[in-house]
């Protein structure tokens, strides 16, 4: 189980997170929503040690991990994979080399073994034909699929998706949604998804948390979000320009 407990994070004078707390249950597809700049991506980076909180605790499977050093984070990162917003494939490597990197670094596999395994992983996301292509030759949707294959190479228990459908065409976006749902349904993977994509949110989310002005505004199921009388939440989920929401 994942628990964020009273997380506080500032960048200079700007206090982004002002005491955020919630739990994520095993196997669920959990969405974090909120306006741009509210600290959604910042929050999930705390879970894998890419950022450290100024205050509060991050618990993963009964262990407080927020003060771990880089080396102690390695097992956490084997358990929690992350798909970044811009795919973040390494330009100097082919797709298959990108996918093989975690296998070599985390598992210490040899280059030929890791490449063979990586090709199988690319097959799973229908990208085997582009295994030897460089990322620069791929479209955004293809890069995203390779990035997902790389994130899944270590068979993680938790996967963090940072705006996985941003910049994708609707068909590619729905495929990514299906993949996230399948990970949860078939493999029991817990997914935490940062997203603005309302159709994804209400199609595949088990639960949603909305962050607003550094705090949790509402935590609940999609049905609870639709039913809430909270004007801020209603404005956000209906994408209205006018309303009580302050940006």
């Amino acid at each position, binding site marked *: 189980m994942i628990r964020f407990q009273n997380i506080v994070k500032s960048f200079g004078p700007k206090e982004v997170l002002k005491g955020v707390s919630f739990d994520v249950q095993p196997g669920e597809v959990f969405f974090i929503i909120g306006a741009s700049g509210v600290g959604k991506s910042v929050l999930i*980076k705390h879970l*894998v*040690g*890419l950022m450290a909180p100024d205050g509060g605790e991050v618990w993963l499977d009964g262990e407080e991990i927020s003060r771990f050093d*880089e080396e102690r*984070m*390695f097992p956490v*990162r*084997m358990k929690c*994979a*992350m798909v*970044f*917003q*811009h795919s*973040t*494939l*390494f*330009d100097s490597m082919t797709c298959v080399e990108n996918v093989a*990197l*975690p296998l070599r*670094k*985390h598992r210490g596999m040899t*280059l030929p073994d890791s490449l063979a395994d990586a090709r199988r992983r690319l097959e799973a996301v229908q990208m085997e034909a582009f295994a030897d292509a460089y990322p620069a030759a791929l479209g955004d949707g293809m890069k995203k699929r390779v990035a997902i294959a*790389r*994130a899944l190479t270590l068979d993680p228990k938790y996967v963090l998706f940072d705006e996985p459908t941003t910049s994708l065409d609707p068909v590619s976006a729905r495929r990514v949604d299906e993949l996230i749902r399948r990970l949860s349904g078939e493999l029991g993977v817990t997914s935490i998804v940062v997203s603005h994509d309302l159709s994804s949110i209400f199609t595949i989310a088990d639960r949603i948390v909305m962050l607003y002005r550094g705090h949790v505004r509402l935590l609940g199921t999609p049905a609870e979000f639709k039913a809430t009388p909270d004007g801020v939440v209603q404005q956000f989920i209906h994408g209205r320009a006018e309303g009580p929401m302050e940006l």
Partner: protein
Amino acid sequence: MSALASSPARLAGAVGAVALDLAGGARELYSVFARTLYYVVRGKRERGATLRQMYEIGNKSLLFLTVTMGCIGMILVYQAGLQTKRVVPDFTMVGATYLELLVRDLAASLGSLMLATRVGAGIAAEIGSMVVTEQVDALRMCAADPIDYLLVPRFIASLVMTAVLIVWGGTVAFLAGGVTAYVAFDVPFATFANVSLLAWSDLLTGFLKCIAYGAAIPIVSGHAGLSTFGGSEGVGWATTRAVVNSSLAVIILNLVISASTFLAFPK
């Protein structure tokens, strides 16, 4: 009255903030350097990564360094010749003095200042772009320490290629100086190529400088790249910081090594 009273306090605060900032920067640089040395010994490098960087740092700087060191060599000898003509119209020791200066100081320092602009900017821009596009975060997620993966190949390549380029640049500057001395002042090359003033301590000093500058440029520039924040503007700032700080590092190290070796090997 209260404004007057608060002025010294404000000034002290500003000076303190700058001092803390400098101390923080120095601590971070030391940390990057220590971790780089650790991974040079303990890290597992990607096949060909260091060779690729040697090509980027070395081969691609060759023409730039040849042209700049050749021009500098000609200017230095021409100016030295003019001064000599005015004071003691005897050119027999121009080449010997120039060679001593070149080996002890100028080849390494001027060559490294040139490399700080080309190599330092390149390292900071490349690593800085990776930081702002989250590729460095992705590396950390793959259990690849950015210092080990990005900086160590550049560090080793810079150590080797800076020394090679400085020897080459020094040779070009000396030959260009020799041609200038012959054309402008009728000094035969046999007279110009005078090694009588050259001592082992000069060679040692030059070698120490090659090593120090070769290590400083990637460390300072890598640190600038890794501490990039923001978007393309941040990369621009990181690149500027890398060039300025690498150049500053070369000059400060020059002072320290020159002073130490003058004290250790008095002439």
